[in-house]
Every structure is written in C-alpha cells, then in structure tokens.
C-alpha cells in the first residue's frame, strides 16, 4: 500500500512513507497535548496552561484519552519500525564517537543505518516510558476504583507517572531540537517524506548504500 523507502525519480530519496509521517504526527500532536496539560497538573506555576486549553476540568477529562491516542500511535510505530530499531553491533562505535556528532563533525561518525543509535534510544525510550505512563495513567484515571487495600498501586502510580513523563520530556526536547533546528532536512523528511541523496549519504550511509544496491538489483 505505502511505498518502502526508495530512490525517487526526481533524484531525491523517500525516507518516510505517508503512513509513517501520519503516525509520527498522531504521536506528535497527542504528545504535545499531553505535555501541556500534564505540565499544568505538574506545577501550580503552569496551571494557567490548562486554563488556556479550556479549563483544568476539561484537561483532566481529555488527558487520559489523548494518552490512549499517543500509546496507540507508539504501538503503530513499534509495528512499523521495531525491526529497524534493533540494537546492532555497530551501535557501540557510534556511541563512542558521539562527541563528534554533537560537534557536527559528521564526517568522523561511523556509518549509520536507516535509524542511528540516537534515534533508537529515542524510539525505545518513548516506547517503554509510554507503556509505563499508560499503566500508571490508568490507575490515575480511575483512582476511585482502586480499593483501599490496593492503595500501594496509587502510591506507585503518582511517582512512576511523573518520573516517566520527565524522561520523555528530556527525549522530546532533544528530538524537537534536532529535528527542527539542528538536522536541516530532517523536518522536511517527516512532512514531505523525502531527503536529498547527499543528506541520506551523510547521515544514514549504510541505509543509503542499501537503497542504491536495491535500486541496481531492480533494474
């Protein structure tokens, strides 16, 4: 139905299919809503966010539903990307050289596949934290149904939920910063889907070589 990543006739490379982009933004928009309403409940200094978003009662009602949408999107990502996100033996060398990546010395980085190890960390970080947020979130959604004898579940949930949320906020800040500011071409890839050949070769060399080989084989 949706085309796999491939070389486009216009000389560019399809990096994210329509479905991948759609799921990404489903997760993206639901996460931003969760983040904003969650921050409103996190600190009295940020409670105004909930007021702006239609009142804290509305935020409290909708936050769990947005959470379900977010987790559903993350699970769809798991189906699409889990194989590409598997840890590979080459990852250790990449992490060892990560200071070059941070300093934009990308020519000194080991070759990366379709997803580099940093993206893998982001993916698994969001997946596991997302699942923990879901489990603790269900308890926080219906605290009145947790009997007094099982109150330890509520005590766990009120600490697990913010801890996992904070971890995702860390990932989110880095992800948005890299996607929108640092990695020129990345934002376009998740909107229109394509990147230039030079971009693919520079940042995902192993993946790009494979695409070239596939394209040769198809001829």
């Amino acid at each position, binding site marked *: 139905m949706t085309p796999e990543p491939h070389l486009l006739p216009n000389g560019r490379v399809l990096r994210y299919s329509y479905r991948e982009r759609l799921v990404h933004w489903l997760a993206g928009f639901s996460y931003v809503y969760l983040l904003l309403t969650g921050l409103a409940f*996190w600190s009295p200094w940020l409670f105004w966010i909930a007021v702006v978003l239609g009142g804290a009662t509305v935020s409290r009602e909708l936050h769990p539903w947005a959470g379900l949408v977010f987790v559903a999107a993350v699970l769809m990502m798991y189906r699409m990307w889990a194989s590409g996100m598997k840890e590979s033996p080459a990852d250790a060398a990449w992490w060892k050289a990560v200071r070059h990546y941070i300093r934009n010395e990308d020519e000194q980085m080991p070759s990366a596949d379709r997803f580099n190890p940093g993206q893998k960390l982001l993916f698994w970080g969001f997946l596991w934290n997302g699942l923990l947020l879901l489990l603790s979130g269900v308890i926080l959604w219906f605290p009145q149904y947790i009997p007094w004898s099982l109150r330890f579940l509520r005590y766990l949930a*009120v600490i697990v939920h913010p801890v996992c949320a904070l971890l995702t*906020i860390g990932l989110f800040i880095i992800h948005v910063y890299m996607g929108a500011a640092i990695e020129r071409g990345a934002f376009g890839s998740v909107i229109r889907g394509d990147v230039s050949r030079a971009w693919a070769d520079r940042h995902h060399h192993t993946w790009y070589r494979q695409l070239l080989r596939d394209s040769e084989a198809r001829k």
Partner: protein
Amino acid sequence: MSQATLGIRAISGHAGSVPGAGVERGLEVCKLIDTTTCIGCKACEVACLEWNGLTFSETTFDNSYQTMPETSWNYWNLIKFNEHEREDGSMALLMRKDQCMHCEEPGCLAACPADGAIVQYVNGIVDFQQDHCIGCGYCITGCPFNIPKFSPTARKVFKCTLCNDRVTQGLEPACIKSCPTGCLHFGSKTDMKDLADKRAAQLREHSGFANAGVYDPPGVGGTHVIYVLHDSTNPEAYGGLPKNPTIPLTVQLWKTPLKWLGNLAIIGGLIGVFAHYLRFGPKIVEEDENGKQGARQ
C-alpha cells in the same frame, strides 16, 4: 469566594502567596471523639446527612452493626464497628466515628493540583471547594485516612467539611449537636486536648484501661479531630485507624524533590540545547550530486 477571605491559611495548587496567611487571629478548632462513651447510635450520621442535605446511599448488611464498609461521597460520617477480641479472650465492641480528620498537614491539599480546590482555614478546617475541583482524585491518594470520595455524577470529590458553614456562625458541627451521650465535644484545640488528656488519665487510673490515650497523630502534624481510645497502642482495632499516618512517601517525593529535580532538568535542558545551537549551529549537508541544495526546507 474561598480565596477572598482572610481566614485562609493554605490553598492547593496555588502559585504565589496566600491572602490570609498570618493575618487573622483566631482559635484553632477541634472535635473530640471519646470512643469510650460512644454507644453507636448513629445519630451523628443522620445529623450529618440532614444538615448537609446529602442524598441517600445504599446500605449493606454484613452481620454486624456496620451500615456500609466506608464513608462515601454522600456519606461523610460513619461509625466503624469492630467486634474486637482482647488478649484475655473477652470481647469489646469498639465503635469509632470515622470522618475527615482535618490534618494540620493535609495530604489531600499537598497532592491537589487544582488552584483553590482544597483550602485550609486559619482555624484548622480543611475544606474542599467543588467549584474549583477538577475531579483528578489526587487527594484520594494523598489522604492517609481514606476520606476523600469521588462522586461519579458530580465528577468531583467530597468529604466532611467539619460543618465549616456552622462553625463560621459560631455553632458546633451537626454531629456534635446530635450526640446523646456527650461523647462528642467541640472547642479550641488546646481545650479539647486538655479534656482528652484528662479523660484518658481517668480511664487509666479509675477504669482499668492501662493503655488509654489520645489519638492526635504527629505524622500529619496533629489533627483537628482527635480521639480518646481505650487502647491507644492499637488504633488499628478501631476500624483501621492508622497507627502512624503520614502523607504517603511517594506523594512527598513527587511533590518536593522530584518537582525541583524535574524543573531544573527541564530548564537546564532548554538552556542546554539553546547553548548548543549558539556554539555549534545546524548540520547542513552542502550540495547534492546533481547540484541541488541538500536541504530543501
């Protein structure tokens, strides 16, 4: 309404100062419940329902005097009955009127994220303001006494108000008014503490209750509802009165160290990425093979 009065000492989910903190001179109130003279008549339960105009709730039968297992959103005052077997094999019917304890350091208020949904008055009463309540139920988790209850229809949380509306008019709470044995007393915290200590001493010295004592748990800073118990070493026997109640540890961790750590981490992260951008700037892939700009955006 709640935030306009100088009688307010603490406000939940509130950024900034509190209007009445340290302003108004007033006595701290206290309800004293002498479990040794309670006869379990439930007049206090009825008076509570009548005064507060609460809707009726279903009762359950469990082969005892217990009307329902615990308080509910529309039943704020419930006597807990326990057929307690003493060490010598004799039986004691322990009866304890259960309701909000009006903690000096309320866990509900600490856990509540909604501005003004829970207030603590200068006189010690902890009151829920349902018009500000967002129905999240964090107070349910913050309370060590299992008191705040969620109403599925109102989608707000309710509990005993210590008849704040009566107390501000110089009346005692409805339950106190109705008690036929005089086991309920209402007055200033110091007076009630004195009375309770005297009664406990009397029980120890003249009635053979060697462990009689006053329940005013320090773990929540003391409470504005205190009990005289025949055996203060075993409050659990009185329908699960916790021995050393405190705000749950995870609620404390979440509301203090984690909040500071998290806020610093978020602000540090934002400053960090901005500083990184100033230092290193974007990654730009120069030219494509076919001469087009590498990045098209």
